[in-house]
């Protein structure tokens, strides 16, 4: 945001809010990373810790809510400040969901670890790496309020969708090959879906950054990757 406020404590409060978001973002990233590590290493201890740590993200979200309401009431923000504060509130919601998806993936890892290893596990970390990169980029763009970088991330979601669709087909094939794979494959499918949803929330954050900085929503249509839904079943 350009320039400083005449009332300096206002600037301090705004930067405190952005720090809260940055902390939440870092935590959400770590949660996703931990869930994937736990999956790859079949590490139930780590998975358990990820599930437990979700409460910390929820706590931070509550703090963002309370602080946002306080800023709105006491500062009566206008223009870019108003957009930034409302944006922070929205981003905190997205980050809370991202951490939730990571925790859910970790819960499924706990179940997977009681089953024999399933073959297509490797596709999931590949999807996760892409989404982790997208998430990192979008969080960095948030800190920098860099619209161009955010818009690139926003477009990248297409790749995530495509990779997810490929994984979906692969998992179906394994399940058809051998019915004993079904339990593990269904859990992997949900983990993959969770990761794909994390990518969607990352694009939401990119849209929020665009609105914060420019004051208008992104107008162009986002390129969509291949869907797992059949064309006639698409809800459009």
């Amino acid at each position, binding site marked *: 945001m*350009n*320039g*400083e*406020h*005449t*009332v300096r404590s*206002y600037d301090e409060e705004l930067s405190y809010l952005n720090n809260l978001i940055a902390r939440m973002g870092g935590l959400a990233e770590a949660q996703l990373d931990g869930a994937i590590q736990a999956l790859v290493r079949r590490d139930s201890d780590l998975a358990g810790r990820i599930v437990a740590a979700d409460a910390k993200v929820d706590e931070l979200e509550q703090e963002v809510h309370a602080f946002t309401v306080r800023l709105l009431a006491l500062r*009566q*923000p*206008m*223009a*870019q*400040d*108003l*957009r930034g504060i409302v944006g922070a509130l929205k981003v905190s919601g997205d980050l809370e969901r991202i951490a939730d998806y990571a925790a859910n993936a970790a819960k499924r890892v706990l179940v997977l670890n009681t089953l024999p290893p399933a073959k297509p596990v490797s596709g999931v970390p590949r999807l996760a790496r892409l989404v982790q990169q997208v998430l990192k980029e979008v969080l960095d763009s948030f800190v920098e309020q860099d619209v161009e970088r955010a818009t690139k991330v926003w477009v990248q979601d297409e790749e995530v969708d495509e990779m997810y669709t490929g994984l979906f087909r692969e998992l179906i094939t394994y399940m058809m090959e051998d019915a004993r794979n079904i339990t593990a494959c269904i859990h992997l499918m949900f983990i993959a879906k969770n990761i794909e949803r994390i990518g969607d929330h990352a694009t939401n954050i990119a849209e929020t950054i665009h609105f914060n900085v420019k*004051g*208008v929503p992104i107008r162009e249509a986002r390129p969509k990757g291949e869907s797992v839904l059949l064309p006639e079943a698409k809800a459009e």
Partner: protein
Amino acid sequence: MISEAQSTQQSSRPASDAVKMRATDANVYYGEKHALKGVNLEIKAHEVTALIGPSGCGKSTFLRCLNRMNDLIEGARVTGEIVLDGSDIYDRDLDVVHLRARVGMVFQKPNPFPKSIYDNVAYGPRIHGLAKSGPDLDEIVISSLERAGLYAEVKDRLNEPGTGLSGGQQQRLCIARAIAVSPEVILMDEPCSALDPIATAKVEELIDELRENFTIVIVTHSMQQAARVSQRTAFFHLGELIEVGATEKIFTNPQHKLTQGYITGRFG
């Protein structure tokens, strides 16, 4: 200046697009000082237009141009054109007293005459010959007080002095006095700056009701007030009109850096 075309017009009530007043290249000089620089602004009928900006930005100077109050200031000179319903208000043949009946004014401090509540409101209609006395005048006084939201509070003491009312009531009395002569435009120069929040809320509610019948231009230092009462906001800085547009646009997504700096409290 950032033009109107870039902003979208949205307000709770449909506003007519008719232009009530228009300033074209308006300049004001106080002696050597160039106080208002080439302002082009349209005031639309049945809208509240808020003029905002830091002290000395020219917003009050511009407001005073709209009913030639600057004529009363020694050394003040106005150039450019200001029209009301298409006719130039700086025309030599124009009767200034008549103009000020059409374009009324409410000031920062409530300034009732040292007369009764009744006579404060009756003063204008009497001197403009709208009604001499008796039932006609009573009706104008009562309906003006009603429209100003004051009648219920003063109906039993119309003969008591206006100066005995509270600050908020005095300001509404001044508004009643302004509307008693059936003006078309009401200019308000920081009408709430001397009032407490409750009296301010009453005046703001009144402004919203008045815009059904009148066109209102208000100068205010409170950006929240501008945001609450106006449909269009014009931002002035160092005598220039920097940006004008739909109020919601100005306060959520202003286009000019100076507007942005001012309304977010990052000035200078």
